């Protein structure tokens, strides 16, 4: 599911690197998994926090989850957000792999609000270009 970015395009995007490329550019939920011990971790790092391994796969996670917390931001802290407030930010706990929490925005909720326990499904922004790196697709959650 692709949709326009919930927040203004002028807001910064992630700097893409070797470990976050799958998560930020694939348009899928791709979670870092250690090749040595199989541990899952998010956000991705250059190091496995369980066994110390340096080599990873990026496995597909389930695109559904539950809102475990949120805030409604009313005070803009970035010039790009001046006309975007109020807006929501949600933390979603994925159904699979279990225990993984990802930060995103909830699109199409009632008056930009969110609720703990709300069931959501992942969608993505259309690709966002920044010079010198692959186009980024950011998570945008939709109510189920």
């Amino acid at each position, binding site marked *: 599911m692709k949709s326009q970015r919930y927040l203004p395009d002028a*807001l910064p995007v992630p700097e893409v690197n070797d470990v976050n490329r799958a998560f930020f550019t694939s348009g899928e939920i791709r979670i870092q998994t250690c090749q040595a011990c199989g541990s899952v971790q998010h*956000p991705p790092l250059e190091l496995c926090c369980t066994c110390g391994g340096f080599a990873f796969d990026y496995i597909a996670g389930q695109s559904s989850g539950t809102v475990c*917390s949120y805030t409604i*931001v009313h*005070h803009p802290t970035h010039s790009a*957000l001046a006309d975007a407030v109020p807006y929501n930010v949600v*933390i979603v706990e994925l159904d699979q792999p279990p225990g993984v929490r*990802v930060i995103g925005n909830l699109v199409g909720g009632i008056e930009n609000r969110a609720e703990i326990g709300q069931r959501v499904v992942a969608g993505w922004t259309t690709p966002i270009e920044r010079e010198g790196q692959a186009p980024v697709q950011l998570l945008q959650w939709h109510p189920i």
Partner: protein
Amino acid sequence: MHGRAAVVGLGESTYYRPGRSPHSALQLAATAIRAAVADAGLVMADIDGLVTWHTPLDTSLRSANLASWLGFGNLRFAANPTSGGGNLSAAAVGLADAAVTAGYANNVVVYRSLNQGEKRYGRSLDEEVVSDENAYRTPFGLGAPAAFNAVLSTKYMHDHGVRQDALAEIALASYAHAQNNPRAIMYGKPLTREQYHASRWIAEPFHLYDCCQESDGACAMVVTSSERAADAPQHPAFIQASANGMVPDGGLWGFNDGAFPSGRYRPVGEELWQRAGVRPTDIDVAQFYENFTGTTMMAIADLGFCEPGELNDFLADGRLRAPDGGLPINTSGGNLAEAYIHGLQLVNEAVRQVRNESVNQVPHVELSLSVAGPGTPPGSTVLFSRSRP
């Protein structure tokens, strides 16, 4: 019990609204440090240690430069606690305590100086791309500490049934105390419960009055050995114990730690009480870092003053108010209503309570606690006593 070092000198500049200081960060630092050294009955040449901290968002004064510019003696110890910001004020005092106790330095200055006209807090940086942990936050509008701590607090309040009025109690205590403190930026600006609830949202569940100020100013203290403290002109505040740290996975990014939602420093409390040989109920007065009231709420529970599910009752009924509440907190007005010198001004107030010099003095203070963080781990604590342990 510990107590081999003590705070013997306090100093501070005037506190200003952000960007209003007529003095630079260096001038503010010099003002506070000179006052603290004089208060300790010392001269600059007696100072041989320096502890402070900076963040990438503020003016950095290099320790070597400052020591030379202010005329310290041989600099034998210089260190910064790491990493974060307002979680470090008690850790800075703990570091000075460790240096003095180990004999690495005799008289250590701990200071913090902020001039928001030079560098500004509380905003995202204007960048095209963001890296590290910010890559997972800023693009989604989670761009500043108010929002980071808001999502933490929303979940915590949901899980433990904490009501908005519990947060209000923390803000109201700080503002009430500031009304007796001419140094406080919010002196003469009392806050009512109605004004609190009617104030605009910053990031839910934080109203305007749940959020700390940004301020210009500096404060400083001198830490020396308990033996030398016996000759000091002021009553020493003995460092009975300091503890800092976090749970093992408290440093994971993006709210993926196992202690979410909490202040992530329950073990810090356990260690503090064990080291000091006292319990939370023994504490006469406490200064809790409030970057936001939500983090203070979590600190109170993490350190064992009550269970998370008891916060609504624990924070109510004037318990947080000086002089006679059960746990008076933030008796100079705190970050919310006195000034935000990254929380170090709260440590100064903890010492004043031991010295019997607070504008909201709690009677017969024997144990005075200062708590830094949580929010950004590792958090830190320092416990002062009036009697030499």
